[in-house]
């Protein structure tokens, strides 16, 4: 009796079941692999903010007349970024860690991030199915997650993967709203696109680029029809998703972000100003420290080429070319004449030029945006991460289409073989690099060693210190003062709360007041290591030079140092 009931709860179509299976698998893998991963600077801040935000509803229930003051207090933390993802982290933490005590505090927060990763997997699987059938549904999420830096971003309670998931979901909903039958289904689809857009802008500011991008798509794909139409006809043809996004986007943002409530216009302007005048951080690129614009236009393209596993990169590039060719062929031959792309489908083979333009725009625009010479360069691929699901979709479809073209009778087997060629080394690199995803470079770069020789940024944001925690706990003298450098104080506090770092270890602001120094390789911050040498050098005997200290422990990725620990004499047992 129970089994049929459970079966009834399962999604009804194979497409939905595949998407659900991908979501569950992503959630499980992310949860299993997260504890090994460190806490980056931004995540440390978001953990504090998430807990503060999550306490807001309870505070309002206790003192409803002070809602505005409470909103200001609880949402003051990290108010330069909108709150939605952090609110989700706060809720999952309150539920899983505080109430049910099922997870550590960190894992409780991060469970919210796993949910966003699961959402992205399910969108990729569903859209992959639409583009290239079952093989597309299996391949698209795999191509995305088999990139070590993408896999890394599945774990932290940060904003980049959530906005990537919501960006993809919004575009997917928009695309479906264009195809939905008129009437209620179309309204529902448009409302969903609007709500998802609201969630995206409530997560990170780069989602504000979605409306102009989608508008560009609509204008580009409807240019011919619009040219001959009257203004009234043009207005009638405006996709319902646009008014839905214009209405629901700001509404969802306002509802989700109590910090805006006291003075929405002024505070939104403050938030926008912060991002329009974002400071530049030093960043190493091909042996140069980038600090001030103009920055190299090639940067995001080069970094993508050196970090996405080579075979996956080729599949994605092939997918771009394939989509361009399809868009051009649809332009010449209307959709009625198109060839089949996937395995035996009908509707899914009927992707129009409009769909190709949509996929291409989303695959290229986020990268082109960061290529703009005045846009700050830091943080590796995460700044153009919203492009990567679209490249994964295009890559998956291209592999399926190649197999169908080359050997129609054995297309399934050939697709599986191509998938194995593309994914095996990529999966290997994911496993090899984890948990040091920000240090991942592909085989074209020569891995971490080749990238170090090329003078590429070795890592960022301080999470690789996680690799020395066990040794630190084992060897640091009681009450040792530790200069953590790139690791944020809030990150250390989070580790101490979970018992990952000894509670007696104290925070030091610099090497002069520290017993231990955790040097994290950033060539642009190299002075921090040399300051440590000066501060920790033993007083020389008369007539001798000071002997510089040597590291007592370290984290190395393929011999490339990521972290080294220095100790004052007597501070390391």
């Amino acid at each position, binding site marked *: 009796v129970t089994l049929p009931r459970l079966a009834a709860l399962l999604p009804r179509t194979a497409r939905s079941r595949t998407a659900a299976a991908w979501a569950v698998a992503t959630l499980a893998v992310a949860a299993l692999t997260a504890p090994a991963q460190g806490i980056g600077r931004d995540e440390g801040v978001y953990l504090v903010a998430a807990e503060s935000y999550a306490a807001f509803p309870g505070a309002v229930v206790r003192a409803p007349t002070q809602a505005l003051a409470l909103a200001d207090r609880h949402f003051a933390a990290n108010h330069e970024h909108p709150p939605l993802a952090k609110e989700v982290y706060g809720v999952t933490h309150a539920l899983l860690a505080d109430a049910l005590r099922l997870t550590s505090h960190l894992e409780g927060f991060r469970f919210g991030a796993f949910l966003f990763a699961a959402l992205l997997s399910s969108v990729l699987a569903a859209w992959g199915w639409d583009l290239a059938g079952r093989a597309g549904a299996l391949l698209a999420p795999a191509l995305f997650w088999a990139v070590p830096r993408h896999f890394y971003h599945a774990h932290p309670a940060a904003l980049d993967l959530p906005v990537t998931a919501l960006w993809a979901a919004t575009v997917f909903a928009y695309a479906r709203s264009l195809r939905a039958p008129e009437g209620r289904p179309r309204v529902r689809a448009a409302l969903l696109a609007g709500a998802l857009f609201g969630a995206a802008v409530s997560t990170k500011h780069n989602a504000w680029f979605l409306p102009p991008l989608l508008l560009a798509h609509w204008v580009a794909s409807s240019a011919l029809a619009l040219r001959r139409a009257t203004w009234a006809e043009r207005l009638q043809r405006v996709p319902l998703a646009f008014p839905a996004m214009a209405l629901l986007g700001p509404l969802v943002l306002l509802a989700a972000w109590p910090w805006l409530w006291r003075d929405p216009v002024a505070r939104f302007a403050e938030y926008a100003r912060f991002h329009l005048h974002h400071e530049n951080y030093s960043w190493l690129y091909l042996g140069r*420290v980038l600090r001030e614009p103009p920055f190299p236009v090639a940067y995001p393209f080069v970094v993508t080429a050196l970090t996405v596993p080579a075979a996956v990169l080729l599949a994605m590039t092939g997918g771009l070319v394939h989509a361009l060719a399809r868009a051009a062929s649809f332009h010449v031959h209307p959709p009625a004449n198109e060839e089949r792309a996937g395995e035996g489908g009908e509707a899914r083979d009927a992707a129009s030029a409009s769909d190709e333009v949509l996929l291409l725009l989303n695959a290229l625009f986020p990268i082109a945006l960061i290529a703009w010479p005045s846009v700050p360069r830091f943080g590796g691929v995460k700044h153009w991460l919203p492009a990567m699901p679209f490249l994964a979709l295009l890559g998956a479809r291209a592999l399926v289409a190649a197999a169908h073209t080359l050997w129609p009778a054995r297309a399934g087997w050939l697709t599986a073989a191509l998938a194995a060629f593309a994914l095996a*080394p990529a999966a290997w690199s994911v496993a090899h690099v984890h948990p040091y995803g920000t240090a991942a470079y592909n085989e074209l770069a020569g891995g971490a*060693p080749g990238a*170090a*020789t090329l003078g590429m940024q070795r890592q960022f944001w301080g999470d690789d210190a996680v690799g020395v925690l066990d040794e630190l706990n084992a060897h640091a003298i009681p009450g040792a003062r530790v200069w953590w450098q790139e690791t944020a104080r809030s990150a250390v506090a989070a580790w101490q709360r979970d018992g990952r770092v000894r509670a007696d270890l104290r925070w030091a602001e610099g090497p002069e007041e520290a017993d231990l120094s955790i040097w994290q390789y950033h060539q642009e911050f190299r*002075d921090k290591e*040399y*300051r440590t040498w000066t501060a920790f050098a033993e007083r020389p005997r008369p007539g001798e030079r000071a002997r510089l200290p040597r590291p007592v422990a370290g984290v*190395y990725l393929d011999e490339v140092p990521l972290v*080294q620990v220095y100790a004052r004499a007597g501070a390391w047992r």
Partner: protein
Amino acid sequence: VNAVRAVRERLARLGALLLAAGVAGLGLYGTRFYSALPERLPSPLDWRAAAALLARDGRPGDAVALAPWWAERAREALPASLPVLAFSRFAGEELVGIRRVWLVALPAAPGFRRDAEEDLVERASAVEGPLRLGGLEVTRVDLRAPAVPIAFLPDRLRSADVKVGGEPCVAVAAGGFRCPGGAAVAREVREVDLLPRPCVFGTTSADPSRPISIAFPGVRLGSSLRGHAGVVGEAALEGDGPLHVEVSIDGRDAAGVELVPGDTAWRPFTTDTSSQAGRTATVTFTVSDAGSEPRPFCLDACALP
């Protein structure tokens, strides 16, 4: 229409073939790369073998050079008595006080180049090795003309006379000087042009009328006085005015360096002192800053025989 369709189909097949072949080829290459990578790199045992070799054969005046430069596990693994030089090239480096260099190389590491080795061999009077220790290769290079200074001025900072705007600075117990207005001068190792520079470190007063002067009395001169100046770390990329370093010997101008904002270099200077060789003199650095914010500077000089 049929001809166009045929061309399109042929192009589609060609594209599919190229993509499939490329993915298969890169997939095999990637698998081979990751499976072979551990064999191309040194094991902990290899590092211990190198450490034992250097502990046995190293002597004062020796240093370890790394190729590639980033192989800085050497700092943790090799004997602390040998300084480690993590420079990408050695052609322009003076290697002050070093007579022999042990080049520790990872010859099979991805991206490995022999540049550092070639630079050192060009300066060698004798080369011994390479000795292969698993994934490591150790070569001893005896320098043909080692720069062994008569005096390295940063090491003599304790005996210096330091002033800011003519007001004397006070020597502190930990070494170095505290100056009026909060400035400090000390013997430190700091980063200039991404490399460690043992130097006299200080912070400018950002007031051209209050330059910092650091006078080293009793410096025995040789054939030349050679040194460098630079702005430390990220501060080199900042600033709104040039920083000037003037060098004088017994009050006479001997050399000067100008460091403009954005100049990250470790700027060299040299002055011929052969006419004064053998006598002692007071060498004075005067640092003034035309910028509006204090900037950290690093300078060194040595008297060469």
